[in-house]
């Protein structure tokens, strides 16, 4: 519904600290040297400094580094260690505190000091399921020396390095995706410790584009479109700007921001900071104003022009959360269907999950994430599954690949180079690589959006310790992609190419929870890429072939797929479930799904021909016996609505720069930390993507409903009542709902030119009240905020509601909070005492379940969370699953008499809200919207197994490379394999990365471009001045003295000029 509004981009002229500018500075040592400013190190007389790095390590006694399988909060980590060490008697241990800014964030390691009985405690620690390994702590001493050295190379063309960068707030709408280099976080995910400093270097050279340049491929003949903020006309870096067009309402073609120039430079700059494909044909489309505004309609017209111009590669370093902007999404499909390879940035909203941006999240687009030069996923890089498929399905893997996006150097606005960070930097790196690759292929017919994507993902290098929803298929490898593309035969392939639900951490979250009989099926949403043609279909049905020797018959598989694979791609959703006979079995089961894809053969002589390609999808799962009911939690996804399509406002009203609730509200997106925590506590969490009527309540201990915006079918309300009478428990984390505040947070959207009125509050409290009214419970329309302490835990209540009604035999906890509603509406501050925030209730029926209500969901939501309350969730689960009433809550001094709610009316639905437009439950009706008829529960048709008596290959990943490509056969000439990706900083080099240095012999000097008219002008001026001098001389001469026989001119001059000056003209 929304689109792109401008966003604030602050230019931060942050110059990095300068270290060691003096030529003869003696050796000095700093533990962490700041990145050096290369400009400053180039001393005037060209003597240069060399940096020497030394380091030594020694083991620190009694201290051990405990590495976990994932990222956990400090509390969870300490819980794990204490639970692991519980069994070892009287061990004297403690966690070594690390007081640094990172300690507020989840980490994957802890330093533990163990003084007694070390060996046995280490062994027990290592046995804990969440502990990956335990290693001794080492102390590293690094020293840094600078030595003076005269070098042969002295570069006169001293460039001015501009450490300009920009920082963006979270994009509200479609925005350009770049940010400040301040996001240069080392996440500590690299596998081994290396004494390397990330220095901005030539990204084209790091990716070994020079190898392809030397072979004569420079992108010539490939048309690249840059959709961005434009490009100034006479930029010295570009030699082949074919056309510039403007699609905005600003009457200029020039770039006022530097974003478009930078992006174009990374693709095609020919000097200084070299781009990938300097000879490619650049088509500059200005679709973004200097105020960072753009409209869908501008894009539609500009894309039409790109199709008409038969663009080959299109870079879009722009994205937004609105994947339901149908005109835009359809147009992107149309574009790729016309063979335009679209490369787009995945977004800068990390490290939160569920933050993928459109159009990079589309199957036909190459979505690019960012890493830094140390191969860590850049903190800003958006991640998480796509959320189009929720609630019924499961998200696809995105980004597709990652590449350098942090501190990359590219063209500056007018001249020179600058360094910039963001996925909008990573995207042109891939677009440039794609352009270069396309120019290497002899048969251009073979290059299409699918084959290019297949080559990129099949050649990508996987980063260790990073899951697929962060890195996709791994890091771009240009040369391997070249090899694959040049031996490519049209075929279909899958992304991901195999399903190994046991592989951690790559296959997170699948690997974090085994499957069992009776559980909701694990769904893997595989993308089929079809390099054979823009349209294709799946022949017959995919076949499930379990491997009998590997217990494949213990698994049931259901497959659903796109009826038509268009454009170039389609989905293949594989649901894996456990057969009844394995209800109490534990082990690994394997098999594969076989899919045959057919496409009309366009280049075939026989006109009825079809090309087919068969791909195997290996499946490997871990099965455990069905856990007891009390351990099983069901997460209600069906009743979570989000932006897009409608305006569902944020849950924390303080976060003004992020007005929308858009991360999907799934346990693997913005409730990821909560999920990890529940798993670490031993709970099994499943997702309900269907109405409440569609699950067997006797299987589950607790139904968890968090921040629900959807309405409820009357059948759901009766079913839930019956289930709870029969022992199911319910936990609801509600959120605010106040019609006055909702009216207040409406805004006029410049982009859609209409008023935006929220359709619910943070949660849909009136609907929730309908659901829980049967137990005499209700939430209020109050809006509260504040810090408080509950059971010795610091808590923050961020825009939550209170409990208005509760049964009198229930437990209710109240707190003193600020009335945020008053603050929003009238800017007044008022403190309200005894606001009931938490309620616990045991239903009276025999064996009946328990209900827990809490008024705010922000403390378990990853977006904008300030203080987590996972402890509270644990306590509530203890109560609901095991009927253990937490004493810290029941004996709290904050316990109050349950409110009866008679003093205030319950919240009513906002008059004239449009929830029915987005709701799966309501439909428009004369007068008030009415519930639709209850839909049928989703039914999976299990594939009929065709058992095979064979064994799976041991390495599923290596086995599943592109079929026709034998990597060993394609050899590169002159490949200097294994160039270090990041080198220790040596100032001697620092000036060098700006000089093309014979990469493209001749070209650099040939194409002097705009300097030629300058020379011509100067030459003309010299000649002109000579004439003028001659003429004046001739005039001043008396006629009579003009000799018949010409004397040498220089003598005349000498005679004439001697009186005036002592110098002879030397013309």
């Amino acid at each position, binding site marked *: 519904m929304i689109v792109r509004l401008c966003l604030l981009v602050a230019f931060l002229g942050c110059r990095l600290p300068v270290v060691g500018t003096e030529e003869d500075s003696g050796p000095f040592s700093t533990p962490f040297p700041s990145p050096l400013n290369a400009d400053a190190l180039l001393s005037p007389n060209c003597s240069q400094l060399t940096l020497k790095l030394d380091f030594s390590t020694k083991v620190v006694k009694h201290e051990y580094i405990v590495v976990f399988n994932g990222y956990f909060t400090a509390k969870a980590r300490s819980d794990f260690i204490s639970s692991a060490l519980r069994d070892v008697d009287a061990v004297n241990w403690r966690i070594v505190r690390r007081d640094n800014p990172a300690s507020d964030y989840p980490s994957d390691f802890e330093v533990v000091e163990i003084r007694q009985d070390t060996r046995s405690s280490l062994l027990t620690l290592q046995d804990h399921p969440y502990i990956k390994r335990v290693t001794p702590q080492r102390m590293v001493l690094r020293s840094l020396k600078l030595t003076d050295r005269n070098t042969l190379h002295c570069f006169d063309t001293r460039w001015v390095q501009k450490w300009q960068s920009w920082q963006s707030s979270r994009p509200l709408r479609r925005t350009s995706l770049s940010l400040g280099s301040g996001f240069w976080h080392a996440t500590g995910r690299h596998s081994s410790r290396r004494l390397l400093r990330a220095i901005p270097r030539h990204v084209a050279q790091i990716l070994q584009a020079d190898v392809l340049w030397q072979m004569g491929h420079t992108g010539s003949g490939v048309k690249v479109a840059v959709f961005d903020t434009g490009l100034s006309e006479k930029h010295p870096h570009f030699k082949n700007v074919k056309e510039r*067009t403007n699609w905005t309402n600003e009457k200029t073609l020039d770039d006022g921001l530097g974003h478009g120039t930078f992006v174009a430079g990374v693709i095609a700059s020919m000097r200084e900071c070299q781009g990938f494909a300097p000879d490619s044909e650049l088509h500059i489309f200005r679709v973004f104003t200097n105020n960072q505004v753009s409209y869908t309609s501008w894009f*539609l017209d500009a894309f039409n022009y790109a199709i*008409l111009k038969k663009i080959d590669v299109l870079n879009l370093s722009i994205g937004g959360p609105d994947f339901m902007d149908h005109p835009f999404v359809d147009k992107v499909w149309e574009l790729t269907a*016309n063979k335009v390879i679209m490369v787009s940035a995945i977004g800068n909203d990390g490290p939160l999950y569920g933050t993928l941006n459109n159009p990079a999240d589309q199957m036909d687009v190459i979505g690019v994430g960012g890493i830094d030069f140390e191969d860590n996923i850049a903190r800003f890089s958006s991640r998480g599954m796509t959320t189009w498929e929720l609630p019924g399905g499961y998200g696809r893997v995105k980004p597709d690949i990652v590449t350098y996006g942090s501190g990359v150097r590219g063209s500056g606005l007018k001249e020179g180079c600058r360094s910039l960070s963001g996925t909008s930097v990573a995207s042109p790196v891939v677009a440039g690589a794609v352009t270069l690759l396309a120019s290497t292929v002899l048969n251009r017919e073979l290059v299409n959006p699918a084959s290019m994507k297949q080559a990129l993902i099949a050649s990508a290098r996987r980063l260790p310790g990073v899951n697929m929803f962060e890195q996709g298929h791994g890091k771009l490898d240009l040369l391997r992609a070249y090899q694959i593309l040049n031996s490519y035969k049209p075929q279909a392939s899958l992304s991901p190419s195999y399903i190994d639900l046991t592989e951690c951490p790559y296959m997170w979250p699948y690997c974090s929870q085994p499957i069992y009989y009776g559980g909701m099926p694990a769904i893997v949403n595989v993308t089929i890429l079809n390099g054979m043609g*823009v*349209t294709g279909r799946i022949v017959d049905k995919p076949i499930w072939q379990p491997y009998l020797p590997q217990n494949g018959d213990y698994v049931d598989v259901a497959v659903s797929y796109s009826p038509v694979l268009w454009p170039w791609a389609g989905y293949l959703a594989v649901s894996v479930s456990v057969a009844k006979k394995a209800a109490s079995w534990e082990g690994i089961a394997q098999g594969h799904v076989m899919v045959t894809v057919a496409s009309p053969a366009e280049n075939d002589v026989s006109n009825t021909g079809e090309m087919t390609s068969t791909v195997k999808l290996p499946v490997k799962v871990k099965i455990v016996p069905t856990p007891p009911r009390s351990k099983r939690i069901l997460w209600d996804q069906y009743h979570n609505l989000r932006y897009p399509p409608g305006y569902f406002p944020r849950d924390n009203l303080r976060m003004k720069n992020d007005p929308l609730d858009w991360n999907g509200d799934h346990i693997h997106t913005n409730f990821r930390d909560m999920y990890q925590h529940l798993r670490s506590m031993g709970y099994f969490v499943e997702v309900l993507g269907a109405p409440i009527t569609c699950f067997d309540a006797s299987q589950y201990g607790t139904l968890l409903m968090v921040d629900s915006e959807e309405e409820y079918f009357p059948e759901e309300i009766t079913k839930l009542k019956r289930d709870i009478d029969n022992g199911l428990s319910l936990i609801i984390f509600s959120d605010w709902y106040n019609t006055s505040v909702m009216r207040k947070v409406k805004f006029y959207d410049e982009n859609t030119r209409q008023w935006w009125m929220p359709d619910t509050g943070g949660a849909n409290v009136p609907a929730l009240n309908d659901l829980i009214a049967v137990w005499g419970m209700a939430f209020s329309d109050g809006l509260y905020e504040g810090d408080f302490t509950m059971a010795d835990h610091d808590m923050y209540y961020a825009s939550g509601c209170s409990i208005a009604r509760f049964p009198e035999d229930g437990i209710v906890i109240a707190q003193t909070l600020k009335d945020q509603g008053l603050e929003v509406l009238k800017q007044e501050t008022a403190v309200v005492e005894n606001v009931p925030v938490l309620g616990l209730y045991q239903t009276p029926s025999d064996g009946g379940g328990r209900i827990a209500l809490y008024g705010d969901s922000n403390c378990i939501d990853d977006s904008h969370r300030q203080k987590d309350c996972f402890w509270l969730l644990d306590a509530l689960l203890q109560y609901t699953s095991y009927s253990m009433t937490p004493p810290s809550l029941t004996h709290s001094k904050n316990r109050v008499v349950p409110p009866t709610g008679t003093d205030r009316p319950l919240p009513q639905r906002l008059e004239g809200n449009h929830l029915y437009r987005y709701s799966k439950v309501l439909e428009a009706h004369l007068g008030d919207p009415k519930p639709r008829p209850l839909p049928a529960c989703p039914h999976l048709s299990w594939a009929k197994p065709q058992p095979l008596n064979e064994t799976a290959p041991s390495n599923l990943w290596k086995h599943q490379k592109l079929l026709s490509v034998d990597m060993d056969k394609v050899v590169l000439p002159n490949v200097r394999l294994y160039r270090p990706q990041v080198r220790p900083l040596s100032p001697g080099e620092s000036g060098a990365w700006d000089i093309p240095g014979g990469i493209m012999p001749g070209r650099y000097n040939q194409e002097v471009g705009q300097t030629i008219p300058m020379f*011509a002008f100067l030459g003309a001026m010299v000649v002109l001045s000579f004439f003028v001098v001659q003429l004046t001389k001739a005039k001043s001469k008396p006629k009579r003295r003009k000799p018949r026989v010409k004397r040498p*001119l220089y003598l005349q001059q000498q005679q004439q000029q001697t009186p005036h000056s002592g110098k002879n003209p030397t013309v």
Partner: protein
Amino acid sequence: MVFRRLLRKRWVLGVVFGLSLIYFLSSTLKQEERTIRDRTLLEVRDSDHHIQWKIKFILGNSSRQISQCRNSIQGKSLLTDELGYVCERKDLLVNGCCNVNAPSSSQHVCTSCLANGCCSIYEYCVSCCLQPDKQPLLEHFLNRAAEGFQNLFTAVEDHFELCLAKCRTSSQSVQHENTYRNPQAKYCYGESPPELLPI
């Protein structure tokens, strides 16, 4: 010495100067030309300035033989070739033309198109637009092409390209930027935008 003397001749220097001047002016003008090209795409044309449209209308009958066809490339199942035939992908010949004899092929069909010139299927819109009697309508449209379309329609070379471009959804197809005016009939060869439906 002879060379030096020659150099001092006034006419020699004149020639050198002239050549330099010509070179200088020509290279400067080349730059200017490029700038002008950029500008024309940018600036709003005067209302009385009529654009010379380089459209060649193929008016011949359907039996005209051509060796290679361009077609609409993108279709999920249907394609339109430049002669206006719509066919299924499987009935496409190697030369890019529709197989005229295939049962699914038909020329200049306006299936799914409404009276206002908007169709629900892109391929039929292109085929309908290629009808020879649509030429006056298209010419009329081109002569008063909306501002936002100038970039696009100055680059169009012929009738087929015009129809391909005209039938695509564009800025005229949307309301509130992110919703189609009429999701059912959004591909228009005619002048008027799709009929506005309430959200």
